[in-house]
């Protein structure tokens, strides 16, 4: 296992130039979370259009894995239905847990697949989906 596999160019690109970073006016749902031991922080805000995630933005600070994951996952779910979003999140969790997963559904998020080889870092990659889970529960 080499470092280049963990710190892929796409991960460093999203870490240094994150997509969907900032705040939304009048979000329909918002949530935040942190990993108390390492200090990674992520907050997410979402706007829905019926059953569709019309917009999503995040703010946060922390390591390259936690911040690139937030950037990549917000890219992946924007414009998707709630059901599609949940499917993406489940496939992503499967990937991090070392289970089988559908790479087509994950797209660029698959760049984080090598994190599973670093048990101490899985929580960095998981923070965004945990925060997203909480936010989605606010959707009636």
């Amino acid at each position, binding site marked *: 296992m080499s*470092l280049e596999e963990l710190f892929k160019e796409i991960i*460093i690109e999203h870490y240094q130039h994150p997509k969907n970073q900032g705040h939304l006016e009048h979000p329909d749902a918002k949530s935040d979370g942190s990993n108390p*031991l*390492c*200090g990674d922080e992520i907050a997410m805000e979402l706007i829905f259009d019926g059953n569709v995630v019309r917009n999503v933005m995040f703010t946060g600070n*922390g*390591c390259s894995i936690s911040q690139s994951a937030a950037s990549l996952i917000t890219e992946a779910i924007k414009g998707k239905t709630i059901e599609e979003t949940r499917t993406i999140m489940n496939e992503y969790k499967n990937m991090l847990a070392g289970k089988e997963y559908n790479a087509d559904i994950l797209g660029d998020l698959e760049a984080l697949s090598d994190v599973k080889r670093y048990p101490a870092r899985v929580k*960095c990659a998981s923070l965004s989906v945990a925060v997203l889970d909480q936010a989605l529960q606010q959707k009636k």
Partner: protein
Amino acid sequence: MDIERIRKDFPVLSRMVRDKKLVYLDNAATTQKPSVVIDAVADLYKNYNANVHRGVYLLAEESTQAYEDSREAVRRFINANSTKEIVFTRNATEALNLIAYTWGEANIHAGDEIVVSIMEHHSNYVPWFRLAHRKGAVIKIVPSRMDGELDMDAFKSMLSDKTKLVGIVHMSNVFGTINPVKEITALAHKKGAAVVVDGAQSAPHMKIDVRDIDCDFFAVSGHKMLGPTGIGALYAKESYLESMEPFLSGGEMILKVTLDSVVYNELPWKFEAGTPNYEGAIGLKAAIGYLEKMGMDTIESYERELTAYALEKMKTVPGIFIYGPLRAEKKGGIIAFNIKGVHSHDIGTILDSEGIAIRAGHHCAQPLMIDCGVSAMARASFYFYNTKQEIDSLVAALKKSKEIFGHVA
């Protein structure tokens, strides 16, 4: 000092990690153990294990003697007056909590002031924070100066007749700063305040003389000085321990119990309820024996040389920022840093791939992180078994981590 011979005393140091030689630079978190410590614990279980201070048979006499010999070793190591002043605890944290829940509970009242420094580990802040909340007392925080040393002028200005307790870390687990505890104690005593020194990081690396410092309490951690985990010690002046109520209660800490009366045991056993960690104490005695054989002055001067070398070499890493004093004579072998554009956890993972173990995170000192305007730092911390070659490996890996993340404006 023959480092290669010393390293052979520590079995784990010859381990390979991710196909690389282990470079262990997380000694402020815990130290590795020499064979004499591992063997002392195994010897107890193989040859004379029995609960201490209970049996009348030979094994119990031997285990009790070994346990109490360890107390004498701790007394000698920090130059306390008497073994009555040495209470075994789980760790330095428990020692500090013991003070807060016994002496603190009885002596801190509404409006009293507790003075601690910004450099405190959570273990020497949270117990006082909670005590102050319970009592309506006030906590005052001594800041650090830009050079990473304690702001003694601010400290002096905070002392008043209301000051009842001063809590101070002897060696910061983040900055490595060695605080002038003797001077602090003298100033605090003039105001009639009690002084608690957190010695978790200092006792492993420098000669400690609690009588010279004249502090009222001193907390020691065993596993940070070659000993097993789960054993620490509280030093407290006999007059304090005499006046204090017990902390935990149960077996061992009593002389006589009837259904309507309890007579507490003598010092120090009054503060040691239940079967103690005699395995840990016996390992700690072997650890102290090892340190004394090496000589604390030898250890201190070698580590200072190593720290000076590390500070010089680490400065050459592009984008590095080192926290705390930059002069080795002001600090112990603890160097906290960040590299621009590379988060400390990413540094930790990249170093791990080279077999190098360092700490990344808030180091149980979040107020200090906030004060420095960061949420995390990387930290390399040394012990006498580390070498300059290992520091070269560290510096090379830090440069590599900077390369992986490219040059960020």
